[in-house]
């Protein structure tokens, strides 16, 4: 038995930026198994579908999940009271493949930043580049510092950190790292994967797609990949991903 759905006690629910909520949930059976880049599939009262949320951090007893309110489901989640028991299937999917002795550049854009925290904790002295639209959406900066990362903050409008995109910083610093891991909006991932290819650096990207079962049975969260023989086919974000080798993704 690889999968299990269990109840997790919500022990913290805090709005850490406008519309962005920081959950800590407790379950000693499942939390300890989580790997960087995997996700949790969360039951939402009154909703047919669960909400897939990437794992921001985990230890032996707890999992941290940071999510943005985007619709009714995440709205309901944001209003859950501490002490509530939440049905969660976790950990799911394939996370980032981290090798020892490599220096990583970890890039997060917007709500793609949270999974990079747990990833940062699994790597040695990573370069972390976090990008946000504006100052009021900036999250997790202290956590990255505490994780021992070399941290760069960018905002699209220049209200905090470097005025510009994560890709501007990546181009400057790419020779300081061996490999790139990224999570964020598709245009950002596309740009990062082009830069990685140009500089001949391996690159892993974490994708998002509207999801059903979360385990690979219903085939709804399709993403197109190109195989080495040039053939294109649909794989599925939940089971084959969410982390893919950037080279094979057809953006």
């Amino acid at each position, binding site marked *: 038995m690889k999968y299990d759905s269990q109840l997790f006690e919500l022990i913290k629910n805090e709005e850490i930026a406008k519309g962005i909520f920081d959950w800590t949930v407790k379950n000693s059976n499942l939390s300890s198994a989580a790997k960087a880049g995997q996700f949790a599939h969360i039951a939402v009262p009154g909703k047919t579908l669960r909400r897939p949320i990437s794992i921001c951090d985990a230890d032996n007893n707890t999992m941290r999940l940071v999510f943005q309110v985007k619709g009714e489901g995440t709205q309901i989640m944001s209003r859950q009271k501490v002490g509530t028991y939440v049905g969660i299937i976790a950990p799911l999917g394939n996370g980032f493949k981290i090798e020892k002795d490599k220096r990583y550049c970890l890039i997060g854009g917007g709500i793609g930043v949270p999974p990079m925290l747990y990833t940062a904790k699994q790597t040695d002295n990573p370069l972390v580049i976090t990008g946000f639209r504006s100052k009021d959406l900036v999250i997790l900066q202290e956590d990255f510092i505490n994780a021992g990362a070399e941290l760069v903050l960018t905002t699209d409008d220049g209200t905090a950190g470097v005025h510009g995109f994560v890709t501007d910083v990546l181009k400057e610093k790419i020779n300081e790292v061996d490999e790139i891991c990224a999570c964020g909006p598709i245009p950002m991932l596309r740009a990062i994967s082009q830069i990685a290819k140009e500089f001949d650096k391996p690159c892993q990207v974490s994708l998002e797609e509207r999801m059903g079962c979360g385990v690979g049975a219903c*085939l709804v969260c399709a993403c197109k990949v190109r195989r080495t023989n040039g053939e294109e*086919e649909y794989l599925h974000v939940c089971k084959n991903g969410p982390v893919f080798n950037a080279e094979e993704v057809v953006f």
Partner: protein
Amino acid sequence: MADLKVSIAGIEFSNPLIAASGTFGFGREYNEFYPLSVLGGISCKGITLKKRDGNPPPRIAETPSGILNAVGLQNPGVEHFIENDLKWLKEQNTVVIANVAGNTEEDYCKMAERISDSDVDMIEMNISCPNVKSGGVQFGTSCESVGSITKAVRKYCKKPLIVKLSPNVTDIAEIARSAEAEGADAISMINTLTGMRIDIQTRRPIIRNNTGGLSGPAVFPVALRMVWQTYNAVKIPIIGMGGISTWQDAVEMLIAGASALQIGTAFFSDPYAPVKICNGLEKFMDENNIKNISELTGTIKPW
């Protein structure tokens, strides 16, 4: 002790709960939650002669008490299924139903012939998929076309034949009668109801296929009504489905006329739904002194 066993067209099921096609793949993923023997049967992901890529994403959207999907029959093809999945499935102690689809009547016949030569227990003919351009529901919306394809496939099908019906029709009971008249051994119903959602900012449908099939608790009352109407029209057994998510829904569906049940969208809310439904059914039967679950079928007392 409650007896949950049911028999459909001579095939014995350990309980009336069958995983609905398209929600359960070929069973491997859910086997990571529990042994598949907890299910009476599995209707596998719809298969076609050749591999199909399916539709571009997004393929799913949530709706009030339900979902829309338009996967578009992504599958590895019948030969891949037989070589890679069937042997394993047959070892799981549950009834294996192959759900088949095609572009033409000839495709359906070839599929029936090929699968009749395998260890599959039953064939479910899918003439009700709303999400593909050709094949699927085009065969399922008139009595003539349902009768014609059932008759043709019957000649090649050496296994018990279930015909899966679309609710997107004016009179589903008449369509079921046509399938019965041409040799169907059972009816499964309902497939999804065609629907859509639109993103008000982009004015684009949320599903890339524009339209998708609606399923989940939202369609349950429609499914129940259709099963009842069909039960009054045919003698062959009905496998009822459409939004069943609790044991109470399951009891209702049996009372309306179903002999067995399929569970689909409920897996997405709770992978353990069929286990919970089975437990609930057993308790209900014990409390009401019902020895065999089939005693419930069609016991509705309409006003």
